[in-house]
């Protein structure tokens, strides 16, 4: 039946369908195979029509999870993720997930039901102005009250979500529009071609200037951001780096855009970036920013940011240029296209001296690195994450939550490929990881998926364990359990005189919690047990939870505190057990 509906959607002459059927037929036409949602009164006609269409629906436990799943699905696959919810609370529960996708430029389409058009604005049961609420956190949204407008709106939503700088789009459909009928004509519903932003421009003179700056630079650094992955410019960035021997520093969301093992890869920059990366940026005479937006977490104090460097900014969104950091050469366009135009002008360069200088910045970093500490009986999160990297061969999709474990993941799990680290960067949404991992697993069912999550974030969306159980999917969950809201505690340690207000956290027994969902689990307390536990999780047929009881008061180093220059880092005291020094 499913295939018939699919064929009908695309090949058959225009047919009269209900608005609800049009929703699914349009999604099928857009290539959607999986959606994540939660039914309710105002979206019931759409759910009633679902069985006629070849789409798998995952029932979530909270609509925030649906939006994060659509987001994780998109980050893992590059396709548009789809979330569905009812009106009122169903719709408002999506908002955190939508904002998460907005801040990280992730293409998702959210479909919400709304009350009948006749009672719109009357405070009807479960009515909320969701297009008003989501206006600042979507690229665009639609309020649809006629069946014939549904297909054009959804097709337009997909185009908007994917085009230029991607992002979330919401389509709110009144219940009477779902129930009414209209002629469904997929082809006729096609949107007009995407309008290129008129301020997007790459001038010949800009390319020539950029090439000249690169040619003459003594200390250049490429700043590699998420835009590389969204634009699919991995090869072009690599060619630029290799040909001109330019070292590459990555943003959190850029991790995977340039292979971690590449000799030119410096590592992550910014607040918790490696010290030599930040020193290289501060000392550079040229920064080539590729698909990144100089977020405050990567610049430190703006006034003292890379003072000696000329700046080339290659960016698709004209509103990002000169927003935080004034640049010398803006090249506003699709990163891959711009680099393809630029590369013929770049000739090989000798970068040896500068690379040696950066190597010198490393100094005693290796000694300070927690992973090189002898096993003193403590279980450190960094060890756990580094071991998971080693054991999975770096081949797993890792979905993190937000906080200390997220930074340790960025530092100790090395990503060779794009779309293998899924993490909430811009909004920093706790509770993101578990649902996003479910989305990632649906996008890539053959890949190994690991959730790395703190005990705080895990409890924000732990209800989705039931979704994992109901769907019978294989996800490995590593809870980095330190009994604190660790990153907040770290800020309290540094900036609030260790007044640990409201950060110690009592949690349930996570293994028992998993067990209650029919998910197996283990608690790990020492480093010696890590390898076996990780292997047990990997070889288990179903989802598996590892509860890592790590050191309670460990700290993410280095750290650039707010308002400090990027090179003014708080460093881990060298060669000592980090707990002894405090």
């Amino acid at each position, binding site marked *: 039946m499913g295939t018939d509906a699919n064929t009908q959607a695309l090949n058959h002459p225009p047919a009269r369908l209900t608005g609800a059927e049009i929703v699914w037929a349009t999604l099928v036409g857009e290539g959607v195979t999986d959606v994540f949602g939660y039914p309710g009164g105002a979206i019931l006609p759409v759910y009633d029509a679902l069985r006629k269409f070849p789409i798998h629906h995952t029932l979530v436990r909270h609509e925030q999870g649906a939006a994060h799943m659509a987001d994780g699905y998109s980050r893992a696959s590059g396709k548009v993720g789809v979330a569905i919810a009812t009106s009122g609370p169903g719709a408002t529960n999506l908002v955190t997930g939508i904002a998460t996708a907005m801040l990280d430029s992730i293409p998702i389409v959210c479909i919400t039901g709304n009350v009948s058009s006749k009672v719109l604005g009357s405070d009807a049961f479960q009515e909320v102005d969701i297009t008003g609420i989501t206006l600042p956190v979507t690229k*665009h949204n639609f309020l649809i009250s006629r069946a014939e407008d549904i297909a054009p709106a959804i097709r337009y939503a997909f185009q*908007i979500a994917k085009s230029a700088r991607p992002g979330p789009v919401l389509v709110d459909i009144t219940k009477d529009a779902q129930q009414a009928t209209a002629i469904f004509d997929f082809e006729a519903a096609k949107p007009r071609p995407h309008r290129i932003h008129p301020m997007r421009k790459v001038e010949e003179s800009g390319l020539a200037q950029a090439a000249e700056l690169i040619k003459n630079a003594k200390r250049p650094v490429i700043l590699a951001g998420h835009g590389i992955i969204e634009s699919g410019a991995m090869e072009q960035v690599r060619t630029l780096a290799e040909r001109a021997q330019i070292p590459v520093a990555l943003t959190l969301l850029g991790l995977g855009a340039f292979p971690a093992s590449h000799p030119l890869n410096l590592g992550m920059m910014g607040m918790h970036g490696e010290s030599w990366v930040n020193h290289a940026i501060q000392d550079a005479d040229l920064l080539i920013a590729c698909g990144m937006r100089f977020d405050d977490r990567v610049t430190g104090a703006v006034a003292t940011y890379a003072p000696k460097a000329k700046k080339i900014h290659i960016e698709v969104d004209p509103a990002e240029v000169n927003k935080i950091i004034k640049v010398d050469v803006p090249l506003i366009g699709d990163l891959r296209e711009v680099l393809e135009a630029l590369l013929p002008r770049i000739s090989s360069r000798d970068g040896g001296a500068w690379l040696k200088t950066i190597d010198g910045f490393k100094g005693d970093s290796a000694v300070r690195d927690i992973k090189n500490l002898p096993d003193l009986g403590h279980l450190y999160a960094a060890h756990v994450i580094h071991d998971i990297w080693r054991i999975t061969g770096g081949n797993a999709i890792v979905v993190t939550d937000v906080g200390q474990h997220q930074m340790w993941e960025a530092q100790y799990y090395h990503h060779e490929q794009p779309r293998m680290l899924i993490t909430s960067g811009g909004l920093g949404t706790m509770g993101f990881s578990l649902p996003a991992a479910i989305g990632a697993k649906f996008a890539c069912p053959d890949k190994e998926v690991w959730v790395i999550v703190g005990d705080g974030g895990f409890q924000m969306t732990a209800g989705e364990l039931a979704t994992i159980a109901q769907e019978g999917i294989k996800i490995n969950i590593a809870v980095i359990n330190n009994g604190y809201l660790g990153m907040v505690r770290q800020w309290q340690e540094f900036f609030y005189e260790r007044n640990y207000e409201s950060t110690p956290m009592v949690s349930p027994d996570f293994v028992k919690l998993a067990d209650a969902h029919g998910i197996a689990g283990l608690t790990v307390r020492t480093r010696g047990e890590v390898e076996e536990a990780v292997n047990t999780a990997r070889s288990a047929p179903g989802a598996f939870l590892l509860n890592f009881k790590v050191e309670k008061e460990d700290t993410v180093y280095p750290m650039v505190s707010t308002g400090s220059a990027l090179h003014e880092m708080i460093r881990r005291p060298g060669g000592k057990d980090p707990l002894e020094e405090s």
Partner: protein
Amino acid sequence: MLHTFVAYVEDLPGVLTRVASLFRRLNINIHSLTVGHSEQAGLSRMTVVCEASAEAGHRIQASLYKLENVVEVDDIAQAPSVTRELALIKVAATPRSRSQVFELVEVFRARIVDLAPESLTIEMTGVESKIEGLIQVLNEGEGRILEICRSGKLTMRRGHHTSGVLKAMSVSADESAEVPAEDGAAVEQE
């Protein structure tokens, strides 16, 4: 600096909110905003005046273009342009005190559009400073101002002129801003 954004937007529900929300998000106060039909069917023309830095102005323009319903954006700012505002001003005036108001209206080349026993209504078109000039002298006079309704700024770039003409006109426009009585003459010459 003062920015004057002229935007062509689709004539659809909610578009005004999308545009206004962009300024709200940056915590920028809109001095004036006018919307009406344009010469193109289905498109409205908005004129938004606000105070913002040059960088913020650039960002607003770039962000306006990112809105799906916005078709064209121009930041007129310092460019040679024709700018007018319409004001309706209701003044308390009895038959005895009217004549003073009549005189002012004459000097400012405004018009009386309504006359009632206790009040009269003045219609005035001109640049902002001229309207403010009238309001000021009315405040200084006997007639109490009861109501003011201002359209906000309406702006259009000037047509293509030879540079000499442009220079001459921009001078007269500048002068007219300060000397209200001459503004009408400048307009007539165009």
